[in-house]
């Protein structure tokens, strides 16, 4: 399955709003009473329950606009839980989760992919910095069949070394595909320079040598450490009845106990950065890239909403400052700006593709001039209003289908507070121009920045032109 470099790229290329920001316009859901559950709270249209026997968190969001349902399990383990030698292990394990169990496997014809493709489900799994999720969007009648397989592989996965060996080369090709792209490759280098202690240092795909060599025993240990009900949240969104869904979850997940050991928590805190850092990546290529990353707060931080608005003002569409200063002047092909929405403090990233014939230094200079202008003069009320209008509309677009809702909810779970799916809306609506100026000054500190250049080198191999000739 895939990890989320594609998602990262989408975030870099598009709006600066976080993946989990959505409006509180849906009607509140009336909670139900279900045996074995503790009702926790209802926020917006989502109700939270805890399966008392094992601590599994359950989020229910009935939504009946179409006769389908999205079921998703989010494990609170991502590449931030990895250390040297196991980088990429979370993602490799995610791939191995499709290799079957004694109950459900290809030989029996009932593996998760066989089941879901037979019923026409849309499914996948993704891994990112703070979480791993498995999901499917299916017709409502197929919900229990999928849930049974998903629950089974929480604790009964085979994890054969033979599967690891075969899947390693698959994952390595995924790594190679990412390295093919200059901006993705530069992003890896910038993160590695920006974080020296915190595990956000390494990318989710991991280092090549770790992908190739991590032993099955370490993957097994990883599985046995993190794949437990009390480290997971299941979300059910779509056309279902809450009491029936809770009963199904209990039937299939209630068979497991809590983790026998406390789930290990990441305690590493990135030391204060005390000076600007730079990285350079040189490879054969055509187009240069300039990336600048400043340390930014957690997605749960009170400043996050204002940073989201700032990202939109700087980098979203033709009305943005970077478009006017760079793209419209043929200095850059495109520019993006966004604040990372993660569990721990991360980065506010700006990326610009350098137009042909333009120096990297010129693009960097203009980017920084615009940053300084915001810090000194702030932004206008009109700019904030436009950013908020985009936010409100994106909120509605994010409700177009149960899968869209699930994918956004997933990132708020990963950030450590699913209620951000709603509460971030309120925070964003209250952002003022003064807030934007304040956070620009608070976080756009040159001494807490990392700048990267991708410098394309001319082709040195026999011929880089496509002049295919028939055999």
């Amino acid at each position, binding site marked *: *399955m895939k990890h989320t470099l594609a998602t990262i790229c989408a975030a870099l290329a598009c709006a600066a709003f976080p993946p989990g920001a959505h409006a509180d316009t849906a009607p509140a859901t009336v909670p139900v009473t279900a045996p074995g559950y503790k009702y926790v709270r209802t926020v917006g249209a989502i109700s939270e329950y805890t399966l008392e026997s094992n601590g599994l968190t359950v989020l229910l969001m009935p939504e*009946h*606009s*179409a*006769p*389908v349902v999205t079921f998703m399990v989010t494990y609170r383990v991502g590449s931030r839980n990895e250390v040297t030698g196991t980088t990429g292990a979370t993602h490799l394990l995610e791939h191995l989760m*499709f290799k079957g169990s004694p109950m459900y496997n290809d030989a029996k014809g009932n593996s998760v992919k066989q089941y879901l*493709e037979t*019923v*026409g489900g*849309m499914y996948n799994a993704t891994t990112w910095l703070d979480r791993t999720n498995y999901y499917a*969007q*299916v*017709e409502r009648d197929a919900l229990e069949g999928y849930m049974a397989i998903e629950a089974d592989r929480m604790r009964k996965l085979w994890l054969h070394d033979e599967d690891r060996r*075969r899947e*390693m*080369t*698959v994952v390595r*090709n995924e790594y*190679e*595909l990412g*390295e*093919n*792209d*200059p901006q993705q490759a530069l992003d890896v280098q910038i993160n590695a320079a920006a974080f020296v202690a915190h595990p956000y240092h390494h990318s989710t795909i991991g280092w090549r040598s770790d992908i190739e060599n991590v032993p099955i025993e370490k993957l097994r240990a990883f599985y046995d450490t993190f794949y437990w009900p009390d480290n997971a949240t299941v979300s059910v969104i779509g056309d279902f009845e809450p009491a029936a869904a809770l009963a199904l979850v209990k039937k299939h997940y209630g068979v497991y106990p809590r983790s026998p050991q406390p789930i290990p928590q990441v305690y590493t805190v990135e030391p204060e950065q005390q000076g600007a850092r730079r990285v350079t990546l040189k490879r*054969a290529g*055509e*187009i240069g890239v300039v990336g600048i990353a400043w340390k930014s707060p957690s997605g749960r931080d009170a400043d996050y909403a204002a940073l989201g608005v700032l990202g939109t003002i700087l980098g979203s569409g*033709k*009305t943005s400052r970077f478009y*006017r200063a760079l*793209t*419209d002047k*043929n200095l850059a*092909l495109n520019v993006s700006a966004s604040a990372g929405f993660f569990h721990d403090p991360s980065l506010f990233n700006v990326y610009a*593709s350098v137009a042909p014939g333009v120096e990297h230094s010129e693009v960097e200079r203009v980017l920084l001039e615009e940053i300084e202008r915001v810090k000194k003069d702030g932004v206008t009320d009109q700019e904030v209003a436009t950013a908020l*209008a985009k*936010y*409100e*509309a994106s909120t*509605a*677009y994010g*409700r*177009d*289908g149960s*899968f*869209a809702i699930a994918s956004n909810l997933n990132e708020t779970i990963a950030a450590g507070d699913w209620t951000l799916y709603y509460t971030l809306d309120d925070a964003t609506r209250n952002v003022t121009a003064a807030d934007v100026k304040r956070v620009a000054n608070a976080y756009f500190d040159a001494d807490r920045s990392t700048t990267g250049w991708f410098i*394309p080198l001319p*082709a*040195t*191999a*026999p*011929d880089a*032109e*496509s*002049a*295919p*000739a*028939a*055999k």
Partner: protein
Amino acid sequence: MRLHQMKQLTFVAVLALGLVAGASAQAGIASRAVRTDIGGIDVIIVRTDVKDVVTVTGSLRAGDDRSPEDNVALATVTGAMLDKGTTKQDKFALAQQLGNVGASLSFSVGASTLQLSGKCLRKDLPLLATLLAEQLREPAFPETELAKLKKQLDGAMKSQLEDTDFRAEDAYTRVVYPKGHPNWQPTPEQFITAVDRTTIAEVRQFHSQYYGPAGMRLVIVGDVDPAAVQAELRRAFAGWSGGSVPPAATLAPALTGARQDVVFMPDKTSVSVIMGQPTQLRYSDPDSLALRVATRIFGSGFTGRLMSNVRDKEGLTYGIGAYVGNDTFSDGDWRIDASFAPALLDKGLASTKRQLALWRDQGVTAEELARAKTRTAGSYRVGLATTSGLAGTILMALDSGMPLAFVDEYPQRIDALTLEQVNGAIRKHIDPARMVLVEAGTVPGGTAATK
């Protein structure tokens, strides 16, 4: 145009269902759809239960196939100029109006059409309709913007040249399709040369000649009042005329034999591969669905034969799939897309060819066909979830020449296919001995010359 239409090898693509990926099979879509001719535009409106969201998609026959032989970039340049300002307002004012309400409106040029894409909230549909009509009917085509656009297109093309998927596709299309076929593409150099010497006068002439309601289609899906939408469109497009539908293209001939082309690119860690052939089939042709289902069994999803064997059993690739495509407005092609590490390229290709030979020679089984049918039916209903999936499905069906009822009938048509029809389509239309293999990347021992 080429900068937008190149398909990336993604998981989503592997699972794609062909024409109706993400489609909706909601009972009676055709009966719920409101279809009207508005000033010559074919307008289809479907109200769904989604709250507030409206998706607009459409097509206009001003694609690359309308570009004159001496300016292969003209359709693309014209389409790209639509959002650069109108006679009423400049590009920033346009963008600000959309931004004020969080709406989006974009244009892209493909092989046969200008594609329209918009999204807005229910309350803002009148604005979106106004801006859509204004940009289509009254573009200002400022000289200053053309100068900027030329540099942007030059840079965008250079950026694409770094992409192994793009380079493989780029080379593939010129082998599979002859010059003059809608799906043929000029070389990047030809394209950029044409961009550089495009004049505003040419753009204006192209716009005048090909933009108009004839041959234009709009599909609007979501939280809408169809009568109100119709009224807005009548207002916005009143008095517009022009446009045309080009004559049907001549079929691309079958290749005369197997060939292998290498696009060598240094410093790439993965090689993009396309292996395929022209099909000489349009989507609306009788064998098309049977070939699609056969191809789905071969190369779609994780249970398809290619992913099951080349990836799952042998670990040779992250992604591999097979598709029938580019057949909406003309005959299309059949292909396998894959990525391989340079060191595993030969093994990967050998495995792929083994699977291709098995599928071609022995066909699919009754069990595989039965699973494909249930999968299609299920995924069709799952596609109910989004306005964009439904809108795209309707547009594609109608653009392919199918009736609106086809959107409802699709699962039944798939279900009616027999094993003989499916395997017969493979034998009739697929010939590994007359396929091209394109490899793009740091191919071991590769040069631009024949491998």
